[in-house]
C-alpha cells in the first residue's frame, strides 16, 4: 500500500513539474507548481520528516505560491483571457538540462551510497529540531532571521512608489518640521491620500499645541 502511494507521488511530482516548465499558460504553471509542492511535502512524510512536511505546506504552498500568483496577476493585463509565457532557447535549454540530468542519473546509479541499515522511523522530529535550532545552530538561526527581516523590508521598499521611497529616505535625514514643509510642496503630485495624511498631521499638530 505504501509503495503504491509512493509511486503515485513520484508520478504526480514528475508530471506536474514538467507541466510547470512547459505550459504556455502562466496560471496553469502556478497551479501545477502547487501540485508539485504538495507532492514534495508528501515525499517528506515518506522520509520521516514530519515537521518539514508541515513547514513545506505552510510556507511554500501558503506563502511563496500565493506571492507567485500575486506576481502573475499584478504583472499582466487582466482583460486578456490567457496569460501567456513565451519560451525561447527551447532546444539549447533541453540540451543543457538533459545533459545535466543524464550526468546526474549516471552518477546516482553507479555510486555505492553508504546507506545505514537501521534507519527506522524514530519519535517525532519536532523536539530534536527545536533543540538543534536553539542549541547547536543558534547563531545561524539568528543570522537567518535578520536576513529574512532585511529581505522583507527591502522588498516592501522596492515595491513602493518612488515618491514614497524619497519621503522615507528624507525622514531619515531631516526632522519632522521639514518633512511637513516638503509634503506641502508635493501636494500637487499626490491627490486624495496625501491630503488625508495632511489633514491628520494638521490635527495632530493642533492637538500638540493644545497640550502644550
Amino acid at each position, binding site marked *: 500500500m505504501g509503495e503504491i502511494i509512493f509511486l503515485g507521488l513520484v508520478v504526480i511530482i514528475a508530471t506536474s513539474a514538467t507541466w510547470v516548465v512547459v505550459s504556455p499558460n502562466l496560471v496553469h504553471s502556478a497551479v501545477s507548481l502547487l501540485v508539485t509542492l504538495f507532492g514534495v511535502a508528501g515525499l517528506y512524510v515518506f522520509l520521516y520528516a514530519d515537521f518539514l512536511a508541515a513547514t513545506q505546506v505552510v510556507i*511554500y504552498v501558503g506563502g511563496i505560491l500565493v506571492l507567485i500568483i500575486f506576481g502573475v496577476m499584478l*504583472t499582466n493585463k487582466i482583460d486578456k483571457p490567457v496569460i501567456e509565457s513565451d519560451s525561447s532557447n527551447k532546444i539549447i535549454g533541453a540540451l543543457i538540462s538533459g545533459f545535466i540530468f543524464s550526468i546526474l542519473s549516471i552518477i546516482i546509479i553507479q555510486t555505492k*551510497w553508504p546507506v545505514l541499515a537501521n534507519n527506522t522511523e*524514530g519519535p517525532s522530529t519536532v523536539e530534536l529540531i527545536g533543540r538543534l*535550532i536553539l542549541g547547536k545552530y543558534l547563531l545561524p538561526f539568528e543570522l537567518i532571521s535578520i536576513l529574512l527581516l532585511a*529581505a522583507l523590508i527591502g522588498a516592501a521598499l522596492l515595491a513602493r512608489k518612488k515618491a514614497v521611497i524619497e519621503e522615507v529616505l528624507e525622514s531619515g535625514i531631516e526632522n519632522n518640521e521639514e518633512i511637513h514643509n516638503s509634503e506641502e510642496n508635493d501636494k500637487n503630485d499626490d491627490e486624495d491620500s496625501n491630503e488625508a495624511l495632511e489633514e491628520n498631521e494638521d490635527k495632530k499638530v493642533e492637538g500638540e499645541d493644545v497640550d502644550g
Partner: protein
Amino acid sequence: MDNLQIYLLLSSLLFSLGIYAVISRQNAVAILMGIELVLNSANINFIAFNRFTSTLNHLDGHIFAIFVIVLAAAEAAVALAIIINLFKNIGSVNVDDASELKG
C-alpha cells in the same frame, strides 16, 4: 520507497526541469517558478541523505532544509518586488525586454 536512489533521481529530475525553465522561459515569474523547483530539489536531497545516511538522532539535514526554505521565502519576496518594479518601468515582464541598465 526504501531506496535512496529513487529520491536522488527524482530530485535531479526536478533540478534539471528548473534549469530548463530558467534557460527557456521569457516571463520573469516563470523563471522564478523554475528557481523554486531547483530549491525544492536541493531540499529533497538534504532530507533523503539525512534519513538514509545518518543515525536516528541526527537531524542536521532538516535544519539545512529549514534554512533553505527561509532563503526561498526571502528570495521570492525580493524577486517579486523587483519584477513589479520592472513591470512599472518597461511595461512588461519579458526578461528579453529588460536590456537597459538605466530605467
